[in-house]
């Protein structure tokens, strides 16, 4: 892919606990092209959010976190950038929307103040021009009574409204990459659909790339140009959604897909689940981290970590993938 905006290569994030280090992200390798929506999928605790926060340079602000690997954003090495320049990128080139809209806004200030603050990161306008721009931006995210919302405090708004405001705030920066960390998890289903539709529309209109973190395979299948599956701090499969849905290569991906209830046809008596849970980051099993839960596990799975091998349109890290290699 020539038009890559963001490329992570072997990103590792460790929490330094003095005597031990706990790897939160063991190997994150992924690419996001310009104007592309990439969905980062995985169970809770698989390191999706940490990866997202690391791209924003937020993980690194904690002195106990050690980050290695490379992250290049439009040719710039994000991890090598001095903090001051990294700060300049945030809120201009990179923007982030968080999981809980109701707590992402400062309760002390009104919406207008907070949006204005975000706008001023990008451009200086007269007060009336600012207000017009804010109203316009709110309209873009589907808020049509902008004046009322601008006058409100966060506690007076619903969750969906707050998330729209947060997205508007991110958009004011006109970022080239929007990172959305489970933006719809805290919202109910109808609002969820609206917000996702909004993100998709903005991607098309503004041409910005989106890295959408989600644990919902359905959302990923609907929206993504590419799906990246993470398990226990490692990217285990990346592929276009149609490939993932039709022929998942990694048994974990297959397990995730299997646990979605079918929309058509007879319903199974019991929905299949993946037994067990994501390993504690401080006690990741040897070899492939998924082997204790994997139906296809063999001897080598518990001994050596599988390398990343290319497949049609993607790649997989598995000793016994469900589809044949096609190199």
């Amino acid at each position, binding site marked *: 892919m020539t038009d890559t905006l963001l490329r992570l290569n072997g990103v590792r994030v460790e929490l330094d606990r003095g005597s031990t280090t706990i790897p939160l992200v063991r190997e994150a390798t992924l690419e996001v092209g310009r104007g592309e929506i990439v969905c980062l999928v995985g169970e809770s605790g698989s390191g999706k959010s940490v990866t997202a926060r690391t791209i*924003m340079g*937020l993980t690194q*602000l904690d*002195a106990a976190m050690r980050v290695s690997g490379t992250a290049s954003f439009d040719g710039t090495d994000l991890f090598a950038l001095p903090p001051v320049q990294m*700060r*300049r*990128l*945030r*809120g*201009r080139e*990179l*923007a*982030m929307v*968080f999981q*809980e809209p109701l*707590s*992402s*806004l*400062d*309760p*002390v*200030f009104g919406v207008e103040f907070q949006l204005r*603050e*975000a706008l001023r*990161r990008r451009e200086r306008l007269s007060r009336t021009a600012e207000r017009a721009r804010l109203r316009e931006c709110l309209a873009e995210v589907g808020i049509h009574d902008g004046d009322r919302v601008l006058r409100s405090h966060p506690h007076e708004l619903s969750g969906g409204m707050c998330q729209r405001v*947060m997205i508007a*705030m991110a958009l004011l*920066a006109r970022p080239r990459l929007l990172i959305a960390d489970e933006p719809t998890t805290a919202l109910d289903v109808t609002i969820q659909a609206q917000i996702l539709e909004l993100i998709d529309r903005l991607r098309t209109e503004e041409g910005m790339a989106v890295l959408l973190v989600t644990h919902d395979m359905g959302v990923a299948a609907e929206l993504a140009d590419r799906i990246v599956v993470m398990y226990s701090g490692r990217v285990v499969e990346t592929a276009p959604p149609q490939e993932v849905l039709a022929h998942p290569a990694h048994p974990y991906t297959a397990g995730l897909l299997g646990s979605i209830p079918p929309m058509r046809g007879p319903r199974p008596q019991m929905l299949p689940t993946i037994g067990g849970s994501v390993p504690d980051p401080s006690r990741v099993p040897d070899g492939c981290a998924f082997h204790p839960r994997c139906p296809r596990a063999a001897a080598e799975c518990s001994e050596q970590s599988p390398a990343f091998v290319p497949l049609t349109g993607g790649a997989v890290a598995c000793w016994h993938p469900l589809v044949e290699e096609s190199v």
Partner: protein
Amino acid sequence: MATALAAPARSPLRLRMPRLSTSRVTFAVAVVWLAIVAAAALIPGLLGPGDPAALDPSQVLTAPGEQALLGTDHYGRSVLTLLVHGARTALVIGLAATALGLVLGGWFGLLAGYLGGWVDMLVGRVVDMLMCFPGVLLALVIASGLGASTTNLIIAVGISAAPGFARVMRGQVLSVRSRLYVEAARSMGFGSGRIIVCHVLPNALAPSAVLATVTVGTSIVAAASLSFLGLGVRSDVPDWGQLLSMGQPYLASAWWISTFPGVVLTLTVIAVSLVGDWLRDRMDSD
């Protein structure tokens, strides 16, 4: 039998009576009392006629009555006038010392909570050390080192109040700095200074504000205690603590000199802490 006995205890009358009415009445009384003290501090001539320093040898140690409402001291000064004029000293010291403690302690608490690491360690140790002394004792040490004057009294009481503010502020900052909106502000590229001023400080201020109201009361007492011990204001400044101490030798013969300042002091501190409680309840509800 048991149920029959228990029933009257749950009657709505017995439950409601003390809860609603008395708390409202006491709160109203507290506010009115503070208003009187504040009025006395602002325009003392209105409530306590005459010059507080005016001596009248013919009126020495007059008992409360028609001649002098609250009696006179051993110089013949009116106790009422002294009390009214002392209100300004009490309030100025109480407010100024609290402000000093809030700014000083709050600043260090904010730094410690936000920066963490060795700054937090250092501030924490110093605060622990200062907290080992009872507040008044610490103020006493500082006041005796600085010498007696109103400014030094404020500094002494203010510094002894600072550790409390530092702790409260640090704890609150620790909780606020991990809130999502702080991270969201960071993700928008705002620097630490702006995040502290715009997001951390306003959200961390409420508990310190409540502590401040209580501290106004304790500072007035602390200042009065130091004045009582002769480490407070100069002797020509009317002050409740000083009056209390001056009346002490005459306690057997002229009880009113010490009693009235004591009563006024107690009422003021109780009123301040009642208003503080009310403020805390209001702030908790949001």
